[in-house]
């Protein structure tokens, strides 16, 4: 009852453009005070806030962001795209194919979808334009490729999920690798099909010689090295994810420095930018935790559990319903707030159904990927728009719609064959 009212107010405030963290905190504190009294609500909020920011494990978020930002500063995007271009540029839609490959490479060292989208848009779009690619295909491939940023580890969304649900971040990261590769494959397949139907959208480029390929690949070795150190370190148990993030950030720092891409001002800017993004994320997490405590106090987990049991549906159909709710929410909410708003409510149900939390985490990320590119609020699409202002929103969304097909296909694959997700982590 109180919980339902609270959620409606949060949702309304968010729709009215009140910052998500502010909306969740306001309702969380107010609702908690109504259920108990002012003193407990005040204390609970302060303690939650203090414990959240004074946290060793959560330094994993800023450190992985920092790694991605240093890499971004190093402008490795160009080299990644060139390397991908020399490999697949000559096939039909080859530049779009190269975009997907380069996005996958960038995703392997960046945890953010937005960063992946932004940096590839700057590099890949001008090239596709030069070759006369249709905006609809260029934009679609960049926006879709950008979503790989949160599926292929490292991933900020997986981090937040792991933190909220106390699921092993190591396992979540390792679990994202195979679905990430499948996503790359399906996106590339989609481009092949699309350019078969509409050859004019994506003419092939020139074929590169093996020498050129070798030279281009040699330039991206630091990306491969960083990925191997960070993910290999986690997989082999040499570092915890938090430590791996620190090592990865430091490696990226040295790399940017070595490339001469890091002036004093650039260094400070990168650090400040990372701190600001982290503060933004932490503030929303704070909101989710306080709101979660209110919902908990209002008995929502118990009621929802009872409701779900009362439905008498198989776990499969409950999952389908959850996916459906997420896709609907994704139409109006941005990914971080979606995860933070829903996971505390839905996760207890998942646990009670005996669903593997690692597998569910990957499933959620894939649904969030869809949300990132689905209208009316697809953050990746807006991001793309701010980098490429001359392309209309309609064209952007149309391009993206094409890539919803492989996204849904991948979702079906992972639901039908959970081993895709769980095989690698089971070996750890």
């Amino acid at each position, binding site marked *: 009852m109180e919980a339902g009212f609270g959620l409606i107010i949060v949702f309304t405030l968010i729709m009215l453009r009140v910052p998500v963290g502010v909306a969740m905190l306001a309702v969380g504190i107010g609702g908690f005070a109504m259920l108990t009294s002012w003193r407990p609500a005040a204390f609970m909020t302060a*303690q939650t806030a203090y414990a959240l920011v004074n946290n060793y494990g959560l330094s994993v978020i800023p450190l992985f962001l920092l790694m991605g930002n240093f890499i971004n500063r190093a402008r490795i995007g160009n080299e990644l795209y060139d390397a991908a271009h020399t490999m697949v540029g000559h096939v039909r839609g080859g530049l779009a194919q190269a975009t997907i490959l380069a996005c996958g490479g960038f995703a392997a060292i960046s945890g953010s979808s937005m960063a992946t989208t932004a940096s590839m848009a700057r590099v890949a779009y001008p090239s596709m334009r030069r070759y006369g690619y249709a905006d609809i295909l260029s934009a679609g491939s960049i926006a879709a490729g950008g979503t790989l940023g949160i599926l292929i580890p490292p991933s900020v969304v997986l981090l937040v999920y792991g933190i909220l649900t106390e699921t092993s971040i190591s396992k979540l990261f390792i679990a994202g690798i195979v679905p990430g590769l499948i996503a790359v494959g399906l996106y590339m397949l989609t481009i092949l099909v699309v350019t078969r139907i509409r050859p004019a959208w994506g003419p092939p480029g020139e074929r590169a010689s093996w020498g050129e390929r070798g030279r281009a690949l040699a330039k991206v070795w630091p990306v491969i090295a960083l990925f191997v150190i960070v993910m290999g370190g986690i997989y082999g148990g040499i570092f915890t994810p938090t430590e791996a993030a620190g090592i990865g950030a430091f490696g990226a720092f040295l790399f940017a420095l070595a490339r001469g891409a890091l002036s004093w001002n650039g260094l400070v800017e990168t650090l400040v930018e990372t701190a600001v993004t982290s503060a933004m994320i932490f503030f929303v997490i704070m909101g989710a935790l306080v709101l979660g405590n209110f919902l*908990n106090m209002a008995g929502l987990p118990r009621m929802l559990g009872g409701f779900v049991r009362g439905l008498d549906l198989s776990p499969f159909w409950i999952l389908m319903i959850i996916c459906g709710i997420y896709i609907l929410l994704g139409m109006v909410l941005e990914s971080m707030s979606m995860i933070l708003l829903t996971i505390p409510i839905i996760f207890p149900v998942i646990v009670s159904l005996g669903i593997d939390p690692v597998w569910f985490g990957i499933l959620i990320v894939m649904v969030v990927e869809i949300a990132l590119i689905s209208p009316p609020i697809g953050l990746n699409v807006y991001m793309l728009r701010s980098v490429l202002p001359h392309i209309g929103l309609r064209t952007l969304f149309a391009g993206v719609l094409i890539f919803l097909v492989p996204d849904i296909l991948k979702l079906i694959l992972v639901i039908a064959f959970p081993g895709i997700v769980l095989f690698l982590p089971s070996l750890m």
Partner: protein
Amino acid sequence: EDIVLRYSNWVPATHPIITRVIEPWGQELSEATEGRVSVEVMPALGPPPGHFDLVANEVADLAFSVHGYTPGRFVLTQLGELPLTHNHAVVNSLAYWNTYERYFMDANEHEGTRLLGLWTNGPYQLTMNGDLLTSMDAVEGKRIRVPGPVVEQVTNTLGMVPISSSVTDAYEQISRGVIDGMFQQLETVYNFNLTEYLTHVSIIPGGFAHSSQYVVMSEAAYERLSDADKAALDALSGEALVRRFAEMWQSEEEEAIGKLEEGGTVFYDLPPELQEEVGEALAFIRDEWVEAANERGVDGEAALAFYESEIERIAAELGVEN
């Protein structure tokens, strides 16, 4: 009107703390009050170390927590954490509770809440991946996860390298060889499936240290109860609650030891000479505690002597050896 006491729970819902103590205890409270007072176990309303304050500030009505989680706050209760006392959780806990009632009650370290009981679980023994404490320098340089200051002192004394990490990190670290071992209750080794990595256990009578635990209730919640219900709650608190927890821990510990022995874990009892050596090396921890207790206005020496005599008395009464 019926009163529901909100118990904020930060351990897994299936943990024996909940299933074997809190739930049956709440059931008995409900029966004793003819349904007027019941206990509702809720998902945690705050971080584990914050649970004392959650109760003090009336966020939750009841909570279980560990004294070692909030350093600087509790000094006298470090008595319960001392090394080389007794293996048997019931012996240790009853002696500890009696000492608390007699010597520490007035110091009121749980100020702002109503203490329903305190106790220890099984002793911390040295569990390692392949190593045994066969001499004072046998484990020198090994990396050990430490949960708090007392274990850190023990670790340093034995020449090991203390690594501070969260419990969840520690489970990952041991499975990957980042750390070589931990001081643990054997119950934890078994219940958290760490037998594959914590293959060797070095045992000293009375343990290398203990974890001191408690349940507190909010004063305001207590005041809401009628006199009859207060009496019913009182009857289920104090020694009655201490016993419940201690018996649960003891049976968990015995069960785990049985399973570990079946599964091939190597147990090594420190020989008497080595026990003595370790005891001498760790004696400073007791001395430091006595000093700290004196500073809090408690006769530390007398309290410690009483604690030890109570251990002896209760052990004899229950007929359990160390």
